[in-house]
């Protein structure tokens, strides 16, 4: 292994704040994406604890109804728009140029701009807490007329402005990723030799480019309605309240895939490395990713089955069908592990946790695709359980897997395996304790977004269990933060390639120098570093299908 001491650029990581504030290096920008996202993850988590504390028992104990609505609205807004989407973009930022053998993103300055729009947008959104009437409180979906000027205060305007900036950040980032992927690949890096993570970022970027402008238009229409007497969504003046839901979900359902596809990409990087096998069915995986992206645009109205305003059978069929490519991925992942040599380092633990929870999150989603069943469970805690199994149990577990996997590359030091495993066990238990009972609460008829419930409703026990689980999840963050702080100073030195990785980021130093590579290995398959380690690619001809 090459030593980092030979690398003249390594000390750049110790340079001052100014260097970070002005950098256009995709690696530093990627790390800033991660840090910014984790800050909002903690803020959103605290808001979630407020919600869980309030629901722990019947009666209103700690917050007013009005603040409760702000808490869950901003919890979801932070988690979706300022944590899950940006942290996956952050991994993309850090890893994609390395995966492609590229020196940086195609447009480094635009890359910096798309990062800096995020804390700005987030601060704008969060500043609603200081406004008269508090932050946005109509749920992260902000349906009019409730989000209109008659019922919601200035916090909603700040929310709209913040989210518009965040959307702009996404659009700029998507263009940057697309150009980078199509134009910046190293010699030999054909499309079908790209790591799956790059494929998922590619499809995600197309989704962002097609969907996010639609969200922005919905937000601008809402802003005009609120402030300039527009009547887009005002039925009393010829508008249509359901129009907003159509436009909003035309973005926000593909957004679910924006929030899960790169997570699938991370899992698809981790599983082959720790099972010492190639990803099973690489091409099937690519086609499944593209299929999910395409089908993702034809299922938006499954969020609107109970509006009575959508053609139910079509959206039911499409929603069922999207389970097929998702299932293909699940089987390919398991087949990757099958007959492998599994080393249970922390990243693989998170990846197997992902498999289990994504399985549950897929199955409980099928209930909602069956329209009459959706009539019963829509807008109940069942849906809260479903979204958290997909976005927390799956995306967030993949995110932590990714942090443990790439932290050595980013910092040159290993995270503690012991603390990582402790965190995993606590988080896995806490997660299931919090969100599994929500299935049962939903079936018992507990609607989402209520601040209080009657003791006689029979929901008290399960709510208490969920609240305890929420605090267990919070506790799991402590070993993680401790691990990061300690390992940054005194973690074991990682070396270039601590995991025996497959992809190009492991062919450079840890952390990589500016512009990433002094030299590149030959790229003759999707595992160039594996090939360099073990000689000729094994079974390579059948893989690339010449």
């Amino acid at each position, binding site marked *: 292994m090459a030593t980092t001491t030979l690398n003249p650029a390594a000390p750049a990581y110790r340079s001052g704040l100014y260097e970070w504030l002005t950098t256009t290096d995709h690696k530093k920008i990627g790390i800033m994406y991660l840090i910014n996202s984790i800050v909002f993850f903690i803020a959103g988590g605290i808001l979630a604890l407020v919600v869980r504390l309030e629901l722990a028992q019947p009666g209103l104990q700690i917050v007013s*109804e*009005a603040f409760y*609505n702000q808490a869950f609205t901003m919890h979801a807004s932070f988690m979706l728009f300022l944590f899950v989407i940006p942290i996956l973009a952050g991994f993309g930022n850090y890893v994609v140029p390395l995966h492609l053998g590229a020196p940086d993103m195609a447009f480094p300055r635009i890359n910096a701009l798309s990062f800096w729009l995020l804390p700005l947008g987030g601060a704008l959104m969060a500043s609603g807490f200081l406004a008269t009437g508090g932050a946005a409180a109509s*749920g992260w979906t902000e*349906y009019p*007329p*409730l989000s209109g000027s008659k*019922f919601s205060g200035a916090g909603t305007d700040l929310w709209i402005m913040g989210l518009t900036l965040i959307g702009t950040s996404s659009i700029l980032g998507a263009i940057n990723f697309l150009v980078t992927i199509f134009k910046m690949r190293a010699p030999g890096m054909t499309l079908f030799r790209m790591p799956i993570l790059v494929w998922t970022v590619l499809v995600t970027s197309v989704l962002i480019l097609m969907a996010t402008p639609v969200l922005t238009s919905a937000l601008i229409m809402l802003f005009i309605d609120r402030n300039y007497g527009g009547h887009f969504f005002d039925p*009393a003046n010829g508008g249509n*309240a*359901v129009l907003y839901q159509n436009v909003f979900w035309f973005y926000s359902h593909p957004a679910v895939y924006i929030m899960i596809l790169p997570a699938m990409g991370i899992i698809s990087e981790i599983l082959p490395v720790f*099972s*010492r*096998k*190639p990803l099973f*069915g690489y*091409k099937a995986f690519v086609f499944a990713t593209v299929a999910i992206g395409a089908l993702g645009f034809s299922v938006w109205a499954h969020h609107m089955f*109970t509006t*009575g*305003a959508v053609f*139910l059978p079509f959206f*039911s069929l499409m929603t*069922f069908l999207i389970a*097929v490519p998702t*299932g293909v991925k*699940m*089987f*390919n992942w*398991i*087949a990757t*592990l099958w*007959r*492998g*040599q*599994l*080393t249970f380092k922390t990243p693989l633990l998170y990846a197997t946790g992902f498999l289990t929870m994504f399985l*549950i999150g897929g*199955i*409980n989603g099928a*209930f909602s695709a*069956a329209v*009459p*069943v959706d*009539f*019963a469970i*829509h*807008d109940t805690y069942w849906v809260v359980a479903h979204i958290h199994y997909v976005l927390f149990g799956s995306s967030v577990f993949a995110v932590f897997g990714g942090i443990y996997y790439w932290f050595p590359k980013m910092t040159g030091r290993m995270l503690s395996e012991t603390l990582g495993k402790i965190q995993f066990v606590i988080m896995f238990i806490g997660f299931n304790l919090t969100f599994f009972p929500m299935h049962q609460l939903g*079936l018992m*008829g507990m609607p*989402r*977004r*209520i*601040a209080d419930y009657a003791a006689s409703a*029979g929901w008290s*026990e399960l709510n208490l269990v969920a609240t305890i689980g929420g605090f267990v999840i919070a506790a799991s963050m402590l070993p993680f933060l401790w691990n990061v702080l300690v390992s940054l100073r005194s973690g*074991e030195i990682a070396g270039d390639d601590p995991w025996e990785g497959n992809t190009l980021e492991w062919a450079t130093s840890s952390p990589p120098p500016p512009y990433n590579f002094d030299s590149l290995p030959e790229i003759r398959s999707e595992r160039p570093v594996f090939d360099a380690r*073990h000689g000729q690619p094994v*079974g390579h001809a*059948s*893989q690339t299908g010449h």
Partner: protein
Amino acid sequence: MSTSPRSRTGSGALVAVVIAVVVIAAVVAVLAAAGITPQRLWDSFFPVGGAAPATDRAHATRSLYDIVFAIGALVFVLVEGLIVITVLRYRRKPGQDGLPPQIHGNNLVEIIWTAIPTAIVLFLFVMSWQTLNKVEAKAPEAVHVRAVASRFQWQFDYLDAQGNLTFSQNLPIGDGGGLVLPVGEPVLVSLRSMDVNHAFYVPKFLFKRDAIPGRENSFEFTVDEPGTYRGQCAELCGAFHGSMVFEVHALPVADFNTWYTAQVAKAQATPTPPPSGAAAGPTLELSALNVAFSTAALQAPANSAFSVHFKNNDASVPHNFEIKDSTGASVFKGDIVTGPTETTYGVKALPAGAYTFNCTVHPNMTGTLTVQ
């Protein structure tokens, strides 16, 4: 990175089984200690705790749920079992320095595990479409009610065959309130919203439908059994969304007809003129706007009758003025009036003390009344 050799690998599977058994035993023990029987646990995986659905349509939905649940549970057991077996069986053992077989894929198995899920979801789609046709079926209705939703209450308008209003139920819950329906007769409910989006949701009907301004949704059902069924708004409508509850009172047909006739007679009777100036003493001014009272504190003289001049400024929203003593017992309850309107309530003499006042329809509208 751990540097210790993996010498414990051989007993790993056994350890895993022991851990699993201990965890399961602990969970069962905790549940048993909390009085949760296996039967209750099983029932909790079905709508409303496994209770019998309350309408004809809900039975169809429940059958569909059972099918989806059975397939979902089967898929979970098979795939999760596969994950667990793989994870336990293929851990790297000491001395495994060579690479495992480098298998890149297999087109046949890809086709198989594409085709099987496709068949399953198409089956589920057909089943759910058939059920949907049952749930959405139309039949000539015996009773037509328009549920009017506004922040944060329900009102139920009973309509005649021409769709004209016969009478309204202003109180969403309790005796003398709620959505009163006959058992065994087809009911048509249409939904109207006066302000924001709401949703009509009765868990035991396994059904909800949104009430959206500018759009009149409707649905039909027949209630199976007499009883009281809890309902609630299911679409976020503002701060007091969680208290926007209602009840469905399902009565045998004969009882329903008696109740209905009495309501019609009451609505057609000449309303008694408001006792204007009937009550002596001072007049307190109070108004309601945006589901809030104009003041949170009122004063009245002790042991002397007084009047309350009440203006309801909320269009189409019913309010009233009720006084409760310190024990929470109601000592005065004014008639509910739907805005915009005004009325004067005559209140008999009250002993000195601290009282609260509220709107019967909106328990969140409260204030204090000091009698001295």
